[in-house]
């Protein structure tokens, strides 16, 4: 029972990296190189403005306005969730890994306020900006031409010279000390860099900036000449402070008009002043009342209070730290557009922190053509819209996780080659966010044919009527000139949203024609039995079903199957009974009947239902959770010999996490115990091809397919312990399969006829080597040892397994594994 093998190629939990197209090709076991996808998620956002953008601090008596030309820019943030599927380079594994993508934070600086988010799309541009914020700078500079070690006022500097600043010092006048340490928040206020070259005008502008930013009561720039012609710049300042506060409040002022500062006339009387302040206070109170509660949780709230309490007087630096703390929480939680815009109510007991959280005001979906121009899309918007989490709709706070989810959900539609989820600031609505979703549609029709003597002809018509309906067909034959031998075809129509695209119920109708040819594991010999003549089961039929998806993984499928089953022997002629080689040579042709009708051809119609409950999830890459599957085939008495039966299977799998681990990228997965039980049974007519078979990689490992028997009722139990080791895991397993004595209830008793045990156990160990599994299984009865290699990657591997001195080389030195194939070979004893 290879639990992961069935699952890995689907990568169900990481749809980000595994697009629906992958899935389709995987199930079709395509011969062509499976398209893989590059995943690119660019997420660039205004790095917390604390780093670069100068926040304006204006000192007023009761109101320190703390913002910000940067408001628009910062609140608007710029980031882009991006998903594209370019043409795959060959051999790229798109199958399961989180391979090529991640969420990157492209930092950028800038402080000129709004208007630059258009550049944000390119992180490179952002970096370029960071390089020279003041636009000055060049390799050349002028010496100050003054004696060394004298202090020069800024005003005394020459307006024509380009000064090189070799050093920047901060001097706190209140404490009379120089501020040391580059981590200090003052450093980020200053856009000058040691080593930069600036003109007097630039320095003066910088001083103005500093003076107007609100952090300082008083600020001065002084140069000190150095012997090498450069200047050492000293910023001497007095920090703004307010009276100490013991309360903290955080309010959401998004979508509210900013408070306008009424200018205070200098020649107001005291009374007028008092009136003015009172009015201002009242206005502010009203503003607080109108604001909405913010998301900031109590723990952070308390943390801030602690900071206030510790610090005593509220200083500009403290406010900056509070802002950083609050913003950090928002950004850590994915509210990438959240921004502290203002501190109000200073000089009272309560500090009010005004936050713009990034409320979504509009959701815009647009289609792009190949060149990136906006165009009319074929897909109906409702199809996209129903995939979007409601947190992206107007009225909700934008969260980057919701954006990611939208990206994943839309990608799972497999309709688009390029998906971008891009929040941008709403110009008409201050503090608002417009979520823009840009989609590039895939080609609607495609047809492919590779015609050599053998080949494949396939066509696809996707997204019919813009409702994601699709029609896919393919015909494959190894010899198209003479195709009757091995023609395989498939035609499938998928019709999603049976209940309407606006109905939240998610039901999909599928109809398909199929044919298949498989070797029957029922006609397999037990240990010590010579080669049993193989029996091929050919199925041709039609299938229609409806799948209702409850969650991404849990679903209920029900439908109807009509098929014709033909059993053939090696020579492709129809056979009616299994055969066994007699000791005297020759074949005994009186084996179990291959079909119900006894003619070698059965036709039947039956109803099929499958309910899957799956709440597994990935914990650091390990599957954890529960999976239950109940499958039912109910014969309707329609067909040859009027088959009436009830064939049912219940599979229960538990992935038990044995240790709590921290969930984060790069952390090791927990050890997992997998418990698996499978019961199958059939009441009524049971043709041999529908009998349950025991043994094989998905039943009891260590045996070949069907080596243990074919039966009417089956019970399989397995346990597997997976222990992470470095990047992969090793596992040990024990399995048992039993026919519950029901082999004799299969017509002709194929278990006994081919001398099989009817039950068996095995145990073994294995290791996952990247996408290839290697395992070593010992079966319990014969003590036979098998080495199994399973290829889970979507391209073929060719491991050479060489023996050494005295040991034979297995399988003649090497073998070839196609995608999702597996091989096992017996290890010679000794």
């Amino acid at each position, binding site marked *: 029972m290879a639990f992961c093998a069935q699952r890995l190629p689907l990568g169900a939990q990481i749809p980000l990296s595994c697009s629906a197209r992958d899935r389709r090709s995987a199930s079709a076991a395509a011969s062509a190189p499976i398209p893989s996808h590059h995943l690119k998620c660019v997420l660039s956002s205004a790095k917390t403005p604390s780093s670069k953008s100068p926040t304006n601090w204006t000192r007023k008596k009761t109101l320190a306005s703390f913002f910000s030309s940067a408001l628009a820019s910062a609140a608007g943030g710029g980031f882009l969730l991006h998903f594209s599927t370019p043409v795959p380079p060959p051999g790229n594994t798109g199958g399961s890994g989180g391979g090529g993508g991640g969420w990157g934070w492209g930092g950028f600086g800038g402080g000129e306020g709004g208007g630059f988010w258009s550049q944000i799309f390119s992180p490179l541009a952002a970096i370029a900006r960071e390089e020279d914020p003041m636009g000055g700078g060049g390799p050349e500079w002028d010496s100050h031409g003054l004696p060394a070690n004298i202090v020069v006022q800024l005003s005394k500097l020459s307006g024509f010279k380009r000064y090189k600043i070799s050093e920047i010092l901060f001097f706190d006048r209140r404490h009379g000390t120089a501020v040391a340490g580059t981590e200090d928040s003052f450093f980020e206020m200053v856009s000058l860099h040691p080593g930069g070259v600036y003109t007097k005008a630039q320095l003066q502008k910088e001083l103005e900036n500093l003076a107007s930013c609100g952090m300082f009561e008083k600020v001065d720039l002084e140069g000190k000449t150095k012997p090498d012609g450069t200047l050492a710049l000293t910023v001497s300042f007095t920090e703004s402070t307010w009276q100490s506060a013991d309360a903290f409040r955080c309010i959401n002022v998004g979508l509210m008009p900013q408070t306008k500062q009424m200018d205070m006339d200098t020649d107001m009387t005291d009374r007028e002043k008092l009136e003015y302040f009172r009015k201002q206070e009242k206005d502010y109170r009203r503003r607080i009342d109108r604001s909405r509660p913010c998301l900031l949780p109590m723990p952070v709230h308390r943390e801030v209070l602690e900071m206030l309490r510790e610090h005593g007087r509220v200083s500009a630096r403290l406010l900056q730290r509070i802002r950083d703390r609050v913003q950090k929480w928002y950004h850590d939680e994915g509210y990438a557009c959240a921004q502290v815009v203002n501190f109000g109510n200073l000089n009272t007991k309560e500090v009010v922190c005004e936050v713009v959280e990034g409320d979504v005001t509009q959701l815009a979906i647009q289609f792009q053509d190949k060149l990136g121009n906006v165009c009319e899309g074929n897909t109906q918007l409702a199809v996209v819209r129903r995939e979007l989490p409601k947190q992206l709709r107007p009225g909700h706070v934008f969260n980057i996780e919701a954006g990611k989810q939208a990206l994943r959900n839309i990608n799972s539609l497999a309709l688009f080659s390029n998906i971008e989820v891009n929040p941008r600031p709403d110009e008409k609505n201050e503090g608002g966010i417009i979520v823009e979703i840009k989609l590039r549609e895939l080609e609607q029709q495609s047809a492919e044919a590779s015609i050599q003597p053998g080949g494949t002809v396939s066509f696809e018509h996707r997204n019919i009527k813009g409702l994601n309906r699709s029609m896919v067909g393919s015909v494959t034959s190894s010899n198209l000139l003479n195709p009757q031998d091995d023609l395989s075809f498939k035609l499938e129509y998928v019709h999603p949203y049976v209940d309407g695209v606006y109905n939240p119920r998610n039901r999909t109708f599928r109809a398909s024609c199929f044919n298949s040819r498989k070797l029957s594991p029922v006609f397999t010999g037990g240990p010590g039995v010579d080669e049993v003549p193989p029996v091929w089961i050919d199925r041709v039929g039609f299938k229609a079903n409806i799948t209702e998806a409850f969650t991404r993984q849990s679903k209920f499928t029900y439908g109807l199957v009509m098929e014709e089953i033909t059993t053939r022997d090696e020579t492709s002629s129809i056979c009616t009974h299994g055969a066994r080689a007699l000791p005297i040579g020759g074949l005994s042709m009186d084996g179990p009947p291959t079909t119900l009708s006894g003619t070698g051809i059965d036709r039947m119609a039956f109803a099929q239902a499958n309910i899957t409950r799956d709440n597994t999830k990935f914990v650091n890459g390990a599957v954890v959770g529960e999976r239950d599957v109940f499958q039912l085939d109910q014969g309707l008495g329609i067909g040859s010999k009027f088959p009436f039966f*009830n064939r049912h299977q219940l599979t229960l799998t538990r992935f038990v996490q044995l240790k709590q681990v921290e969930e984060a990228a790069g952390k090791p997965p927990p050890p997992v115990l997998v418990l698996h039980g499978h019961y199958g049974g059939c*009441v009524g007519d049971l043709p041999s091809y529908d009998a349950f078979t025991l043994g094989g990689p998905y039943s009891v490992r260590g045996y070949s397919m069907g080596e243990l028997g074919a039966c009417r009722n089956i019970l399989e139990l397995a346990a597997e312990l997976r222990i992470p080791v470095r990047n992969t895991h090793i596992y040990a397993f024990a399995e048992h399969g039993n026919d519950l004595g029901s082999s004799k209830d299969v017509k002709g008793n194929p278990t006994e006829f081919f001398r099989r045990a009817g039950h068996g156990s095995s145990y073994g160990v294995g290791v996952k080597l990247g996408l290839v599994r290697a395992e070593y299984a010992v079966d319990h009865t014969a003590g036979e040892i098998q080495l199994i290699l399973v290829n889970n990657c979507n391209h073929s591997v060719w491991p050479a397994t060489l023996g050494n001195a005295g040991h034979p080389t297995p399988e003649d030195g090497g073998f070839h594994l196609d995608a999702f194939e597996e091989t096992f070979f017996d290890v010679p004893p000794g």
Partner: protein
Amino acid sequence: MASQLAREWFGIQQFPAATQSKLHELLGKLKQENVNTLTILVMGKGGVGKSSTVNSILGERVAAVSAFQSEGLRPMMCSRTRAGFTLNIIDTPGLVEGGYVNEQALEIIKRFLLNKTIDVLLYVDRLDAYRVDSLDRQVIKAITDTFGKRIWRRALIVLTHAQLSPPDGLNYDDFFAKRSEALLKYIHLGAHFKKQELQESVTPVVLVENSGRCKTNDNGEKILPDGTAWIPNLVEVITVVIANGSKPITVDQKLIDGPNPNARGKLFIPLILAFQYFFIVKPIQKVIKQDIAKESKPLWELRDLGLANRKF
């Protein structure tokens, strides 16, 4: 195949007078119980002396016997009448071929026995085979599967080559007891007897010596090492088995085909379906709903739903 015409049993005249009178007495007893025909089925592995035993009982050379080769590839029935009483003995080919039960042979036997009634089964094995192995069990199982468990209530175990000297100082009686015990155990295993059934029916074990060098007593009867004349003894045990109250086995098409597993429980399918819908599908659907309710939503989603209350 002499099944159609029942010839007069001349062979009985070959027997010594004492045997003849004993046989007549036993047959008379059977007739008193309104039994006019007696059909004996002889089965066993190859080369254990089935055909020889048949020949010995009838006192005629009806079945070809070869020391080195299996002769009987097909079953054969010999019918003999004597004083209005018909004795049918069915000799069958050996059931073992190449280390396994020969289903083909079994198939032929089954078809041959169609529409016949078996009064007694003689399961023949050799006394001088020291071991019983899984092959014996398979043979017994094959017989059980074919005729049903109850055949063993109408069965005798016949051990041939009775005239032997037991190995290494074992007492003859001990040896015989051990050998029959081992064989009976396998029969109980192979036939899946339950404990209770075991106590009810004890399959008798009879010794036989077909060899021409068999010792005879004063009356010229072939005797076993313990001195009993074995042919009258065998027939007597057969009559006892017949009288034990179990029914003879009639082989019909149904018995040959065995129970049709495809037909079993078919009537209950609608019930099973209803059960599956209400007790499997519905609960799973319920659990899925619980899963959805329990699903740990990310914090941002909870906050959006207003469930955070500023706790996180």
